[in-house]
């Protein structure tokens, strides 16, 4: 086996894993607070990609600079989805909870198709080709920046949840919805913000991914399932677990291409997903069921 190639893939895996981790943290946050699975998560990520793409084309603003705008736009999207749809279905039987979010994914995916067409679009930015040599391997600057920003965004989210007043309320609502209500927390509004934050996280991940990967409307499913895998790896509702899970999946997928065709790497994720669910459903780092 080629050691230099393996090292290269390892680096790439870690860097991509940071972005996986970021989107999964959003999914895990939404699950932790509301107990619902956001089946539209990947489609929201694609929306983040398109918004950042739009800003680049229309205003010439680099995706890394427009990150707050993309995240903000998807925050609003998430907030609206939570307040109009998800808050109404929290007490529904599970079959009825699954459908609206799946349908939301369908809507977002096809809106993207309507607005931007089925073509793959890949913007070229100033940084997309630069690379730093590192021994026998090289590190793409754009991947490195994406990774650093993903980690920074995740840390910022953690700090927000830990330190801010709203963050504390979100954690209270996640811990005990009824209890939070009893002490006067407006749980509906907190839910809106939590869903918005989860969505913003995945939107930001999308914006970070844009310079690395061409965007097309139908990418969403794959992103959603990737986020599932990571969240299950890390434990549902466990945010730190989601981050670590992202790194694990990034590395696994990347190294798997040493022995398998790249188009099969997803099978690795699904296989991993099934195995983890069966032998350790609480995830590697514990979570809530």
């Amino acid at each position, binding site marked *: 086996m080629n050691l230099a190639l393996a090292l290269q893939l390892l680096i790439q895996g870690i860097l991509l894993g940071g972005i996986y981790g970021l989107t999964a943290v959003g999914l895990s946050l939404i699950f932790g607070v509301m107990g619902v699975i956001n089946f539209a998560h990947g489609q929201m990520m694609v929306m983040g990609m398109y918004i950042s793409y739009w800003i680049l084309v229309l205003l010439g603003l680099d995706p890394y600079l427009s990150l707050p705008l993309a995240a903000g736009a998807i925050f609003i999207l998430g907030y609206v989805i939570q307040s109009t749809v998800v808050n109404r279905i929290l007490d529904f039987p599970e079959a009825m909870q699954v*459908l*609206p979010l799946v349908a*939301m994914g*369908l809507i977002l995916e*096809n809106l993207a198709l309507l607005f931007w067409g089925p073509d793959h679009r890949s913007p070229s930015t100033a940084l997309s080709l630069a690379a730093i040599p590192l021994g026998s391997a090289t590190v793409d600057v754009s991947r490195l920046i994406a990774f650093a920003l993903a980690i920074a965004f995740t840390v910022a989210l953690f700090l927000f949840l830990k330190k801010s007043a709203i963050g504390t309320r979100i954690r209270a609502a996640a811990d005990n919805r009824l209890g939070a209500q009893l002490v006067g927390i407006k749980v509906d509004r907190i839910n809106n913000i939590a869903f918005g934050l989860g969505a913003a996280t995945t939107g930001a991940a999308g914006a970070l991914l844009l310079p690395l990967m061409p965007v097309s409307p139908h990418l969403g*499913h794959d992103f959603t*399932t990737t986020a*599932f895998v990571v969240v299950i790896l890390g434990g549902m509702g466990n945010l730190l677990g989601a981050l670590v899970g992202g790194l694990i999946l990034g590395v696994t997928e990347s190294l798997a291409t040493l022995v398998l065709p790249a188009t099969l790497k997803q*099978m690795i994720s699904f296989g991993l997903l099934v195995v983890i669910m069966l032998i350790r459903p609480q995830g590697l780092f514990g979570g809530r069921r």
Partner: protein
Amino acid sequence: MRRLYLLLGLLLLVLLLLPLVLDKYALGIFVMIFFYAYLGQSWNVLTGYTGHISLGHALYVGIGAYVSTFLAQKFGLSPWLGMLAGGLLATAVGLGLGFLGFRFGLRGVYFVILTISCAEIARLAVSHIDAVGSFSGIFLDFNPGFYNFQFRGNVPYYYISLGFMVLGSLAVHLLARSRTGRLMVAIREDEQAALALGVNSFKYSMTAIGISAFMTSLAGTFYANYVYYLSPNSMFGMGLSIDLILRPIIGGLGTVLGPIIGSFVLTPLSEVSRAYFAKGGLEGMHLVLYGVLAILVVLFMRQGILVYIKRALKPLLKLED
């Protein structure tokens, strides 16, 4: 109740006579109505009656389509027999999936994710098998004849798909009234409480997924021989899995008439709006509307359309409940 059966009989008679007056395009829409009603009915057994949510039922459609087509192309086996072979394989796969899910206690969203994963694994695997055309799929040669499950025009497909819908619904109707069906419903309502009453929930959940997978795969064979083309994405994809659950949910989950009514409402809407929007260059618009409709139904008509139809027809049919 008797009047309800009378009404259904009359409707069936009308459906039997319809090909006399409809053109090919209209018949095609009816074929899709029956096809999706039958698919919804098959899914209904597992999710509507037994309460285990599957979002990966395309898995069984794909198995039905690929097995019968492969056997026909390789060994000249009639798709009618290939359909049974596909059914058996789908049952086996369904039981395997069920074993993992039910034995290891995966419930709710965990079971959903298991079903999605298995369907996706199958889609990716089939995409890499050259013997079945890998990514590009299989085109069927057109050799009309009953033996080949291929026909000129839409009339034979109309009657075959109608047969699927009617017989499938009848089967589910009988199942729902049987001991097995009632125990499945108990599992859906409250699995722990059912266990406490001596219901072997593993056994009946396995029965449900076996029946459901078998029924679903038969539709796969039909579909392959109706569109003459199968690809991993169209047969195993998540899109089909979502498509096939919308109708029973909109019509009424866990009822025999729900998938049928849901299909009669949604399928024409989807077919007509697809053609309409595609003409105006709005590819995908019909799916946006589809999604909006699904959300509205869940938010405001949680039990599906059937309940409202029943209420409206109550005085006419002298229904009990």
